[in-house]
């Protein structure tokens, strides 16, 4: 078990280093931030530019800049934003909860909807309910998330005037972004629940539970669902990356002040320290969630460890 743990943690560390290294290198090819900052400032000499570069720390060798940045993980110091000089960690600290809130709310919405629907589909396999759920989930899979967001705005904000179209201001502003991502996730999750349930329902202990005369709902929710919880948690964990990617786009539509909005603004302004830190935080989240899921799975199912 210790060997498995060490191997997985090393793999996770490798991924984070690789992702941040590529991003840090790539972003420095986008152009000179000193030029960008001095735009419209009148006559600027080469000496002024050099001084700006010195102040921003971008005249140091690339590897030194990168190692300074990477060590920031341990001291929680990612430097300052090129725009306005706010410490990057503060910007992240403001945006991260907004993004995480959205991520967990949409996951919650999707799990709450897809478990009963998936079970219904599995129980009525091949019947009309199963096929209806299957068609609806295919349609959900085909929805562009940003268009779904726009259509919800059209319906709930413009036509019905029930919900605010954008921003983060109280619970009502939270509903549409969470529902958008929830619907997109549910489309995949229903199918996952259905497949896992179908596999579990064929086991002998389900037959035994039925033979004992337990009610159908006890058999389904207590015996079958509990046993397919482990593979389901794994799938949900693997989805986390895609979920965050989707949230980044949806945040843009709803003007949600999360990491996605922060990243887009940083790209536009060539604000290296911010973009770098956002990408690193997002990839650490994804790698971290997958690592936890793997470890949990390895603890429960010894066959995984030896693979």
């Amino acid at each position: 078990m210790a060997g498995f743990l060490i191997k997985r943690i090393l793999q996770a560390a490798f991924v984070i280093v690789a992702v941040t290294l590529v991003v840090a290198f790539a972003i420095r090819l986008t152009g000179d931030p000193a030029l960008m900052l001095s735009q419209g400032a009148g006559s600027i000499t080469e000496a002024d530019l050099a001084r700006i570069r010195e102040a921003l720390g971008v005249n140091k060798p690339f590897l030194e800049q990168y190692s300074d940045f990477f060590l920031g993980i341990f001291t929680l110091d990612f430097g300052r934003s090129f725009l306005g000089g706010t410490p990057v960690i503060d910007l992240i600290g403001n945006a991260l909860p907004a993004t995480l809130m959205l991520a967990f709310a949409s996951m919650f919405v999707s799990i709450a909807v897809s478990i009963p629907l998936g079970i219904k589909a599995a129980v009525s396999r091949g019947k009309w309910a199963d096929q209806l759920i299957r068609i609806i989930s295919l349609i959900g899979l085909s929805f562009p998330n940003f268009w779904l967001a726009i259509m919800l705005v059209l319906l709930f904000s413009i036509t019905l005037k029930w919900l605010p179209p954008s921003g983060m201001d109280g619970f009502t502003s939270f509903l549409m972004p969470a529902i958008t991502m929830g619907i997109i996730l549910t489309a995949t999750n229903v199918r996952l629940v259905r497949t896992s349930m179908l596999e579990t329902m064929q086991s002998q202990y389900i037959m035994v539970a039925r033979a004992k005369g337990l009610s159908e709902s006890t058999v389904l929710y207590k015996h079958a669902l509990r046993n397919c919880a482990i593979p389901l948690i794994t799938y949900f964990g693997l989805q986390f990356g895609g979920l965050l990617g989707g949230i980044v786009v949806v945040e843009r539509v709803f003007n949600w002040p999360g990491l996605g909005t922060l990243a887009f603004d940083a790209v536009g302004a060539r604000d290296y320290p911010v973009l770098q830190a956002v990408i690193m935080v997002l990839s650490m989240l994804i790698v971290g969630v997958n690592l936890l899921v793997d470890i949990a799975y390895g603890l429960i199912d010894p066959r995984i460890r030896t693979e």
Partner: protein
Amino acid sequence: MTAIAKSARFKRYKNLEFILGVVLTGSICLSVLFSGLLFPDGGDKINLIARLTAPFTNPDYILGTDPLGRDVLARVIMGGKISLQVGILSVAGAVVIGVIMGLISGYYRGFWDMIVMRFADVQLALPFILLAITFIAIVGGGLTNMIILLIVSQWVQYARLVRGSVLSLRDQEFIQSAQAIGVKDIHILFRHLLPNLIGPVIVLITLNVANNILLESSLTFLGLGVDPLIPSWGGMLADGRTYLQNAWWVSVFPGLAILLTVLGLNLLGDWLRDSLDPTGRTSR
């Protein structure tokens, strides 16, 4: 209900799935193919007098016009051209690289295998949109760059799929006997292994064309993709959003076009998966 009746109903459902998929995908492909004949001006003709005409009110503009008085129907069909181009070319590139890398890494293991698996790890941790934001900031948007980006980020999916199948096939007797009679490696890879693992690859191709159309439109919507001057679904949605208050049709029809195209491809992919794998083991 008997098992036979059930399976007959399932067959009817699968047939319906296939027909719907073919009709949707086919009609989009045909209209894109003949878009030049239907709309010789490419949907670019500006008619300010007829700006923001509501749909179904003017026979010249069945789906209405946008803020510059351009025909929404013409632009939706022209936009399909971009989406199909991106979808097909990006998948073609990724399949060629991915299948070759998958065959090599599964058959020879060792160094190439390690490369593929590490790439797969990194790919899992970096959602496409984030990769796209970073790289498009460097190299700029545009059709070609977007296709390259999709290829770079997706070949690993095919490599992993093929690698997995090769690992389970390479120790089987027909491969061993081919090796024993001295068949060249390149023939073993492409003549003996490839035909035996192509089924799941075809399913992945269908689903990824759909997926890449979605990604292309998201990127263009965010202003990171296709040139805003070229009619594209994502670009039309980005423009139309500003007019959502008083001209819903500018935002509704391009999105509907994406939905129907992607749905058609997903229906076909679903049908293919069940047809190629009758046991239903992979049908998620």
